[in-house]
């Protein structure tokens, strides 16, 4: 039996549909409002829906054997897991964004608001820019509007939220998509099951 951690929300549903299409259906995910675990014994899978940022924690600690998680969270937390496959779902970009007319003239410490403080910090270290990073947990776009920060580092999907708030992408840091991850010990003991699932998925993804 493979224990699979899926991220709650739209991505989790898409991934479950994809897994169902290659023989790993778990059942109706809308049931998961109340039930925390859905099992399909004949397919040999048990799903738990968890907060997206917790998927890698469940997998790293072995509570789940495998999981699906965004590359943003893998880069931010750098959990000790195997990253087996790029599912090419939930594609977006990690970007620096700010007021459309903003240019960084380097004259003062740059104030950066982000939920992804490690990614932001590594990015600015790599280009040698001194920054003051402000950790926020949501509504990041508000920070430059209220003068809390000069720019933000955040995920950009369509760019609509940015446009509506007179913000624009200033730099692209990296592309993001959903990844299949595995616990390093589970991989050694259940490699056949895990690799079969990975191979079946890789055949159907674009």
């Amino acid at each position, binding site marked *: 039996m493979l224990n699979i951690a899926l991220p709650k929300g739209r991505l989790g549903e898409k991934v479950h549909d994809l897994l169902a299409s290659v023989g790993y259906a778990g059942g109706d995910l809308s049931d998961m409002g109340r039930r925390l675990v859905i099992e399909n014994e004949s397919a040999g899978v048990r799903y738990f829906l968890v907060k997206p940022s917790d998927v890698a924690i469940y997998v*790293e600690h072995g509570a789940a054997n495998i999981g699906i998680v965004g590359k943003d969270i893998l880069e931010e937390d750098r959990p000790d897991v195997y*990253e*087996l496959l*790029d599912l090419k779902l939930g594609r977006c970009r990690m970007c620096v964004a700010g007021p459309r007319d903003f240019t960084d003239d380097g004259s003062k410490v740059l104030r950066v608001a982000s939920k992804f403080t490690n990614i932001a910090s590594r990015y600015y270290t790599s280009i040698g820019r001194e920054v003051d990073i402000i950790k926020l947990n949501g509504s990041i776009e508000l920070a430059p509007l209220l003068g809390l920060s000069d720019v933000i580092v955040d995920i950009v999907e369509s760019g609509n939220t940015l446009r509506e708030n007179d913000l624009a992408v200033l730099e692209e840091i990296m592309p993001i998509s959903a990844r299949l991850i595995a616990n390093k*010990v589970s*991989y050694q*003991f259940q*490699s056949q099951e895990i690799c079969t699932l990975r191979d079946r998925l890789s055949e159907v993804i674009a």
Partner: protein
Amino acid sequence: MKNLLDVLSPDELTVLRLRALFEESGYRRYHASRFEEYRFYLENQSFLRSETLITFNDLDGRLMALKPDVTLSIAKNAGSGGGLKKLYYIENVYRPNSTGRNFAEICQMGLECIGNVGKTEILEVLRLAYESLKLTEKQFRFALSHVGYISGLMRSLRIAPQHRTSLYDCVASKNPHGLRQAAEQIGLSADQISVLTETSMLSGPASDVLKDAERLCRNSEMERAAAQLRQAVEGLGDPNILIDFSIRGDEDYYSGLMFTGYLEGKSRFVLSGGQYDNMMKKMMQESRAIGFAIYLDELCGR
């Protein structure tokens, strides 16, 4: 009076059994001091699992650190004098815990063979690592790798040393898509990328993988590595031993075989080790070395 052994917990018994196993093979217990100069760890930072140490000033003003690792101290202190030294230790080390927010005192057991180390000693240490896992009476996996195989592959593809880190990261996380992307960025051709991906992602039981690893050799460094892997597998006599090139070792320290042990139901590996002649060179010691550590917190806990 109760039998003394009945008083011991299963974990304590495991430690005693491991000690008996090591002593029977002629290994003697090494007692290490609790701390070393901070400078020593700073110079060998890339060998340590974490850069964060517990530091304090000694009475003469020198900056000291509580030991985060025992192998470095043994390599420094036991390497000189020629001959062969067979040592094991049970010591507490001090490192950040898994959350990275607090320090933890971790009980670590390990074994080191230093000096005139030849084929016989290498096989003996591999066997002791293998037997240590077996002695837990749980399902286990023993995985082998060799530093020279992937570094030989990188050299055969003429990948400059400054570009290798990002590729090693992808190999260590079994990430073929990331490997392809990183290889494209440094300008490898499509053919080179497919060779790099196919070869470095090899993993599985030795009975399946070893032949492929031999077939895919591209230079004498890889051939030597593959031959040493075969010797190790045949010496241990278990075709279910895994070959896995995602086991990573810093070339500044490791020089040959590397290995990792897993127990079913645990979340992390419980044993790791390898040949570390290059560390001895770094310590200005003209000797060869192989050893392993057993993480008792992982082995016994949870």
